């Protein structure tokens, strides 16, 4: 017991010592992301906004989607894509973090988990900043009074799916970071996988539009994706707070939330174990 305690103590001390570095790295990632671009940090707002416009155009004009089943479709899209974008950018950046910091890892001792952690946190900060776009778009539709979104006090529940996604991103990021040190192939595979994930998550469609029967294998596969529930809950908290007015939105499926939370915790545990087991070998491979 005392040994365990001592180990925990040294880890906490070590983390305290390097918390400044964590802050510097997060700040660095955010600052450097848009350095040398004319619009700078505005891209954090502009990028999701433009993406929303493109996707709205494609799916509304070309595929004939409208807001009758989803509530305001552009807002519906934006909610889903913001959370999806946070997850993919956090995990992709965490995945390559060890390789990108190779020159540093080879020369200076720093607890290595700091690198994937800082990437996930900076993606998180970028995500939080980009949430203002969502507020602006909702306000825009409200002012124009065309299909406005009724945001209620239940919007505070967004915290739950956001935090679970953060934990999930960290876990998946740690696993990918470890594996990609030894096998660079993972980076290519993951690119394809995230595209698959985009269509497997309810971003451009509503699950009910798919006409899968309850309990069918297709629906089970979809629900196995933790983002399925997370995006649903995230969006429900923002758009479907007044369930009385929107009868199609029985969205608070707590089972999906428990599943996502369990999934996230499991990936973090696996991720850290895998990372710790292998971190001393990193330097020999990068």
């Amino acid at each position, binding site marked *: 017991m005392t040994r365990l305690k001592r180990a925990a103590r040294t880890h906490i001390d070590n983390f305290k010592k390097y918390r400044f*570095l964590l802050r510097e790295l997060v700040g660095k990632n955010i600052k450097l992301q848009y350095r040398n671009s004319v619009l700078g940090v505005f891209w954090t707002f502009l990028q999701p906004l433009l993406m929303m416009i493109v996707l709205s155009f494609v799916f509304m004009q070309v595929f004939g989607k409208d807001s009758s089943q989803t509530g305001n479709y552009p807002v519906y899209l934006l909610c889903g894509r913001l959370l999806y974008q946070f997850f993919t950018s956090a995990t992709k950046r965490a995945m390559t973090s060890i390789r990108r910091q190779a*020159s540093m890892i080879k020369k*200076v001792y720093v607890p290595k988990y700091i690198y994937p952690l800082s990437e996930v946190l900076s993606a998180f900060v970028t995500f939080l900043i980009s949430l203002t776009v969502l507020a602006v778009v909702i306000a825009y539709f409200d002012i124009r009074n065309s299909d406005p979104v009724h945001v209620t006090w239940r919007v505070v529940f967004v915290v739950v799916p956001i935090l679970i996604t953060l934990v999930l991103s960290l876990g998946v990021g740690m696993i990918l970071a470890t594996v990609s040190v030894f*096998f660079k192939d993972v980076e290519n595979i993951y690119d394809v996988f995230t595209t698959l994930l985009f269509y497997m998550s309810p971003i451009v469609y509503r699950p009910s539009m798919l006409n899968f029967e309850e309990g069918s294998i297709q629906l089970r596969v979809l629900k196995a994706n933790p983002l399925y529930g997370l995006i649903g809950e995230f969006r429900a908290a923002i758009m479907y707070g007044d369930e009385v007015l929107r009868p199609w939105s029985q969205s608070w499926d707590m089972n999906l939330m428990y599943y996502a939370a369990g999934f996230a915790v499991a990936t973090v545990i696996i991720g850290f174990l895998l990372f710790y087991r292998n971190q001393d070998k990193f*330097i020999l491979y990068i």
Partner: protein
Amino acid sequence: MGKYAIEADHVSMRFNINKEGVDSAKEYFIRMVKRDLHYTEFWALKDVSFKVRKGDHMGVMGFNGAGKSTLLKTIAGVLKPTMGTVTTEGVIAPMLELGAGFNHNYSGRENIFLYAATMGFSRKFIQEKYEEIVDFSELGDFIDAPIKSYSSGMRARLGFSIATSVKPEVLILDEVLSVGDAAFREKSEKRLQNLMGDGVTVLYVSHSTDRVETLCNKAIILSHGQLIANGDSSDVCAMYREMVKKR
């Protein structure tokens, strides 16, 4: 607080050198199935034990490939030894390669904070040292330019200034005294001697017995990964000169 700043206890370091680099999963599995994963073992360090008292200045000598850099990297914590342990006390400023922790898109100013953070220093702490670091590095207005526009000399000067300004407890020097031009070299040497007088523990890697004798009171010799001498610098330097002659 112990008496020793660095304790190396039966440190061995093994590298597996695979003849053809296998870094794709496909190749790895094919080779695993064919049982074709050949590694050549290479022991860069073999059972090295020594202690460095606080305030000691220890010279590390040995021919190329003797394991000096590997030893320093295990002490700096960059490499974990295959066997044995290395225990260190206090803040280590590893100057294995000056400016290793720099980000090239960052300005000199931003890099000062980043670099210091890798040694565990807060922004506030460095703020106080900031003027001193910039003055010493002689970078002047370049401090706000991105590091990628610096010459290697400028980069090294900045790295040296940061590493020595924060008053580390252990300083690892890998022949970095040849930084910058003659004037800067003189200045940096003076600063190192000040630091050494302040009771900083120093590990100094050099091929020059003269330098080790003047700067260090203790010295060790590594040969093919083994520790073959450990003692007062004058004795060890004499031995090293013999080795060089015989070679």
